[in-house]
């Protein structure tokens, strides 16, 4: 098997949306008083994070970071989602 791929891209606009997401994750960490390397967002947004994950894993970690479910046990996540639904209902 021999695969040749040619990709023509413009780097700058191609990175802008990613940086906008990274900035917002950074702000979430500030709001939550979380410091140090943000492993999920670093693995998802960056080529050379402290620790590499597959892009699927990195995506899930970043989603969990955003939703504050990273590191939570399944029953805690169920509880978290239940509270989210209740809050959404309360807010109409």
């Amino acid at each position, binding site marked *: 098997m021999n695969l040749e791929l040619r990709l023509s891209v*413009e780097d700058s606009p191609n990175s802008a949306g990613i940086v*906008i997401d990274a*900035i917002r994750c950074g702000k979430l*960490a500030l709001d939550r008083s979380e410091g140090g390397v943000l492993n999920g967002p670093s693995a998802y947004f*960056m080529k050379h994070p402290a620790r590499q994950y*597959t892009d699927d894993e990195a995506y899930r970690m970043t989603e969990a970071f955003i939703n504050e479910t990273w590191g939570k046990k399944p029953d805690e996540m169920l509880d978290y989602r239940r509270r989210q639904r209740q809050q959404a209902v309360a807010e109409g």
Partner: protein
Amino acid sequence: MHNIRIGIIGVGNCASSLVQGINYYRHKDSEDAIGLMHWEIGGYKPCDIEVVSAFDIDKRKVGKDTAEAIFAEPNCTTVFYKDVRKIGIRVRMGKIMDGFSEHMRDYDDKYTFVLADEPEPDMGEVVRVLKESGTEILLNYLPVGSEEATRFYAECALEAGVAFVNNMPVFIASDPAWAKRFEEKNIPIIGDDIKAQLGATITHRTLTDLFKKRGVKLERTYQLNTGGNTDFLNMLNRIRLLSKKESKTEAVQSVAAKRLDDGAHEPGVAPFSGGFPQFRRYCH
């Protein structure tokens, strides 16, 4: 909830696209959230980001409003949103250090950096600006190979207590010693080396991962990048490429079923050519 206040180190093409993007999204809604993971993250929309400080070393940018400086040469990226509103934030003179490679003096001003004559700030001055401007997150967009200058600004971020997003391949977040310092000060850091929405690295990683999942044995792979902008001109100095090469190599090696032998994976940068469209990168 106030805006997210950012500082920019290096008002080049990537910073230009970022600032244009922030303004572009002001007139859009969630249906137009192209290029983003989510329209809203933690209650923050893309347009809730505000530039409050900026540093550069080029005389065509220093002293100008950031909204003007993003369109100044040698920037050449596509202008997809030209009506960027002036924000009253002037670009300040930055620290040069190794952010400028001597070989770049030999090229046309259209492509290269033209150094400003302004006095360079020391760390105390940068920290003062970051604090007084209310900068919360500092973005590093220095040219590839700016090892010393990146460490200078990372130190400034630590000193000023602002978060750091390291978009280029000098290893700060992935260096355990630096990571520990950010952790000890409880300052967030995201890095290193931005991965584009859909560029050569993510495509290369995805194909490598696919090969692993489908049981295809990957024997050799390469990536050749060519282009004609200031980034590629800067990378003519091959010494500046060392960390870039490591970053790209590890991004692919880390998702391979088995690490490839040295030389079996080769990321490369072909010589800068003014003949290429300035803003476009071709990857093979």
